[in-house]
C-alpha cells in the first residue's frame, strides 16, 4: 500500500522493527481469491531460502505452476472440492482452477499484509508512491478458497487445516458469513485450532455498518478488525448552472469533460422504471441521457456498474449520490466515464436543483490525490458495529485499521472496476472494505511476531489493542463518518491501531487455549459443542464457577440487566503480564456516565521483572436510582509514565 505505512508511523520508525532473519522467518497465510504471482509486490529480491520447517507448497493448476512461487511467495494452494460439489465443475474459461487470482481481491489483501517494496506504484496516477505491505520482510502463503460463486466452509476449513500444517504464523481472512454460534462457524472453529498452535488469526469485522449488532467473526480468539479512513482523498469538484460547487471523490482517469457546463439530468427522470434513480442495467432511456451528465442514487447495484449503465445509454458523465444508508462516506471508484461520488447532504441539494430547474447544467473537474486530510482517521460508515450479537460480554470489533481507498497490488486478469467491460489492466488498484483493514493488522501482527517470537496470539492482539488510540492529537474522540459525531468502542473497539506503540506495550493481557475453553464452559456449552470447537475431551468442572467476564480480554463490555432492581455490581478480573520489565503502573478511570461507578482494586500494580503477572478486579456498580440509558462508554488505563495500557469499557442497558 502507499500512504498507510506513513499514516501508521512505520516509515519514520523502521528501525524499531526487525529487518533481519526473524522478520523473514514469519509467514503470513492469506485465505482469499488467490494471488497474481507476477505482481512486483511478490518480488523476492533479498529474500533467502524459505524458513526451515516450512511445509507449504506451490500447487500446480490452471496457469499456475511451482515456478510461480519464489522466496517471497512461498506457498500457493487452492481448495475447490466443496465449491464444485455444490456449484458444479469450475468453468476454467471464467476462472482459474489454481491459486491464480482472477478477481484481484486476494492479491490486494496479501500484498497489503506483506507485499514487498515497490517504487512508483499508483492507480492511473492516483495515490502514487512507494507501495509496501505492513510486513514487507515476511513471507506470503496464499490459500485460494473464494471462487466466482462464493467461499464455502468445507474449503475454508480445509485451507485452515493445511495452513496450520504448513506452518504459517499469522492467518488473514477477509471474509465472513453471518452470525453463527462458535460451534457452527467454520472460521471460528478453524481459528481456534490455529490459535492453539500459536497462530494469530485476524479477520475482517464485516461491511454491514453502520447498523448495530452487524459484526461477523466475533470469537474471542479471533482479532476482529473494523475500518477507518486515511488522511488521503481524491477530490472532484462538481459545479452547477446555479453557481454552486460541491466536493466529491473520484478515481476517474481519461478524457476530461468539455470545459463548459453540460446538460444534467436525474436518472429517475430518465427512466420508466420505478427504481430508475438507481441506474440499474437497462433502466435508462438513451434519448433522455445522451450527451448529458446523469445523477444516480447509490444502492442495490455496484457503484461502478451504474457508471457503465450511464455510459451505455449515451451519458457523458455521472454524479453518484449517497443516500441515508451511506451518509457522508465517500468511496472513490475508477469509473469508466467521468464520474464522482458525493455525500448525502450534497446529493439532496443537487437532486433539488436538478428536479426543480428547467435547464439544469453541471460539470466535473478531477483534482487528483490530496494528502493531509483532517480529521483522520474517521470510522468508515460501512464498518460493522457492535455490540457483539453472539457474546455481548466480549467487546468487538477489537480495533480499526485503514480500510478506505487503499491502494495495493491487483490481478492482471481484471480491470480496476472488476467489470467485464473494463479492459484496462493495472498493477495496483484502490478499493475499500474491512477486507482491506484486516490484512493491515495481519501484517502488523507479523511485525510484532518477528520482534517478539515468544508472544502468544493473545499477547500480540493485546499489544495492538491496548496501544490503539481513540482520540486525535487534540484529545477529541475519533469521529464516525456515519453520524459525523464521536465514534464509540462499538464502532472502533480499542481504537485505531498504532504499531509503533504496540511494539513496546508495557503490559499484555495474555490468554491460553485453556482460558478460551473455560470461556466456552461459561457459555454453558455442552461437552459435544466444546469438542466441536476445541477437539479436546475437556469436561467443565461442575465445582468451578466459570464467568465470561473473567476471560482475560483487553477490553470490557458490561451488560446491565434492567429487569433487576437494587444496586447491582458487576465484577471483572484481569491479569496483566509485564513485558516491559520492572515498573509501577497506576490506574486512571474515565467514564461518560455517572450511572455506573467504576472501582479498580488494587489501583497500583508493581512489577519487579519481565514476565511477572499481577491481577486486578474492576467492579462496576449500578445503583437502582440510575436512569438506564442504552449505551455509555468509559476507559481504564494503566500507566507507568512510559507506557499507557488502555482498555475501552462499554456499558449496555439491556
Amino acid at each position, binding site marked *: 500500500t502507499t500512504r498507510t505505512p506513513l499514516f501508521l508511523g512505520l516509515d519514520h520508525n523502521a528501525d524499531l522493527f526487525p529487518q533481519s532473519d526473524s522478520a523473514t522467518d514469519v509467514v503470513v497465510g492469506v485465505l482469499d481469491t488467490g494471488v497474481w504471482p507476477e505482481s512486483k509486490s511478490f518480488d523476492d529480491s533479498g529474500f533467502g531460502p524459505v524458513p526451515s520447517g516450512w511445509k507449504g507448497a506451490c500447487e500446480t493448476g490452471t496457469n499456475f505452476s511451482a515456478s510461480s512461487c519464489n522466496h517471497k511467495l512461498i506457498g500457493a494452494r487452492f481448495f475447490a472440492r466443496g465449491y464444485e460439489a455444490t456449484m458444479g465443475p469450475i468453468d476454467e474459461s471464467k476462472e482459474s482452477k489454481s491459486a491464480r487470482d482472477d478477481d484481484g481481491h486476494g492479491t490486494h489483501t496479501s500484498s497489503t499484509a506483506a507485499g514487498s517494496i515497490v517504487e512508483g506504484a499508483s492507480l492511473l496516477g492516483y495515490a502514487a508512491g512507494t507501495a509496501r505491505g505492513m510486513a514487507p520482510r515476511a513471507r506470503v502463503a496464499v490459500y485460494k478458497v473464494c471462487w466466482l460463486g*462464493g467461499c464455502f466452509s468445507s474449503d475454508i476449513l480445509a485451507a485452515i487445516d493445511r495452513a496450520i500444517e504448513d506452518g504459517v504464523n499469522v492467518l488473514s481472512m477477509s471474509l465472513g458469513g453471518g452470525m453463527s454460534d462458535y460451534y457452527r462457524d467454520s472460521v471460528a*472453529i478453524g481459528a481456534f485450532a490455529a490459535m492453539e498452535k500459536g497462530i494469530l488469526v485476524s479477520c475482517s469485522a464485516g461491511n454491514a455498518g453502520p447498523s448495530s449488532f452487524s459484526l461477523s467473526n466475533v470469537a474471542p480468539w479471533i482479532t476482529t478488525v473494523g475500518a477507518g479512513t486515511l488522511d488521503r482523498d481524491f477530490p472532484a469538484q462538481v459545479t452547477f448552472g446555479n453557481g454552486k460547487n460541491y466536493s466529491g471523490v473520484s478515481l476517474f482517469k481519461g478524457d476530461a469533460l468539455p470545459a463548459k457546463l453540460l446538460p444534467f439530468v436525474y436518472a429517475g427522470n430518465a427512466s420508466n422504471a420505478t427504481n430508475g434513480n438507481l441506474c440499474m442495467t437497462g433502466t435508462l432511456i438513451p434519448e433522455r441521457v445522451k450527451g448529458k451528465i446523469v445523477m444516480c442514487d447509490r444502492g442495490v447495484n455496484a457503484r461502478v456498474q451504474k457508471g457503465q449503465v450511464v455510459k451505455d445509454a449515451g451519458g457523458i458523465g455521472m454524479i453518484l449520490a449517497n443516500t441515508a444508508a451511506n451518509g457522508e462516506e465517500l468511496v472513490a471508484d475508477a469509473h469508466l466515464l467521468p464520474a464522482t461520488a458525493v455525500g448525502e447532504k450534497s446529493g439532496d441539494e443537487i437532486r433539488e436543483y436538478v428536479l426543480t430547474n428547467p435547464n439544469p447544467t453541471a460539470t466535473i473537474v478531477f483534482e487528483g490525490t490530496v494528502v493531509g486530510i483532517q480529521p483522520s482517521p474517521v470510522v468508515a460508515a460501512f464498518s460493522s458495529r457492535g455490540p457483539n450479537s453472539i457474546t455481548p460480554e466480549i467487546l468487538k470489533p477489537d480495533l480499526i485499521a485503514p480500510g478506505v481507498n487503499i491502494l495495493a497490488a491487483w490481478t492482471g486478469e481484471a480491470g480496476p472496476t472488476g467489470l467485464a467491460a473494463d479492459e484496462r489492466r493495472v498493477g495496483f488498484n484502490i478499493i475499500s472494505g474491512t477486507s482491506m483493514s484486516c490484512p493491515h493488522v495481519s501484517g502488523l501482527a507479523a511485525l510484532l511476531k518477528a520482534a517478539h517470537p515468544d508472544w502468544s496470539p493473545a499477547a500480540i492482539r493485546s499489544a495492538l489493542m491496548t496501544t490503539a488510540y481513540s482520540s486525535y492529537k487534540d484529545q477529541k474522540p475519533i469521529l464516525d463518518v456515519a453520524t459525523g459525531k464521536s465514534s464509540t468502542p462499538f464502532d472502533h473497539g480499542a481504537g485505531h491501531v498504532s504499531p509503533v506503540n504496540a511494539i513496546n506495550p508495557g503490559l499484555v493481557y495474555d490468554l491460553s487455549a485453556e482460558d478460551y475453553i473455560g470461556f466456552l464452559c461459561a457459555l454453558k456449552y455442552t461437552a459435544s459443542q466444546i469438542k466441536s470447537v476445541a477437539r479436546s475431551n475437556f469436561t467443565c468442572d461442575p465445582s468451578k464457577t466459570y464467568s465470561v467476564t473473567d476471560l482475560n480480554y483487553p477490553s470490557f463490555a458490561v451488560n446491565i440487566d434492567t429487569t433487576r432492581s437494587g444496586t447491582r455490581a458487576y465484577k471483572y478480573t484481569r491479569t496483566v503480564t509485564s513485558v516491559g520489565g520492572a515498573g509501577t503502573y497506576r490506574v486512571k478511570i474515565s467514564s461518560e456516565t455517572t450511572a455506573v461507578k467504576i472501582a479498580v482494586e488494587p489501583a497500583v500494580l508493581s512489577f519487579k521483572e519481565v514476565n511477572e503477572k499481577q491481577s486486578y478486579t474492576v467492579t462496576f456498580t449500578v445503583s437502582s436510582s440510575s436512569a438506564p440509558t442504552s449505551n455509555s462508554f468509559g476507559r481504564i488505563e494503566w500507566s507507568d509514565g512510559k507506557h499507557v495500557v488502555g482498555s475501552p469499557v462499554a456499558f449496555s442497558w439491556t
Partner: protein
Amino acid sequence: AATGDGRQRRATYIVHMARSQMPASFDHHSHWYDSSLRSVSDSAELLYTYDNAIHGFSTRLTPEEAESLTGQPGVISVLPELRYELH
C-alpha cells in the same frame, strides 16, 4: 429438497468426530471416517478429511443420511456447510 425424480437432494455437511472414540480395529482415523460414512450411505464420498482445524471430514449427504450419521458412535455433530463472502 428433492430432485425431479423424487430423490432427496444432497448437500455438503461438515462432520465432527471424537477421535478418542475411534475403535481399536481401525489403523487410521481416515478409515474410521470412511466406515462411519459407509454406514449411512453407499455412494457418498469424502470431500476432505481434516486433521488440524477439526477432527472430521466433509461429505455430500441427503438430509436423512445426515440425520442418521448424527447418531453414529463417535460422531459429535453433522453441520450443514455455510457460504461465506468476501468483505
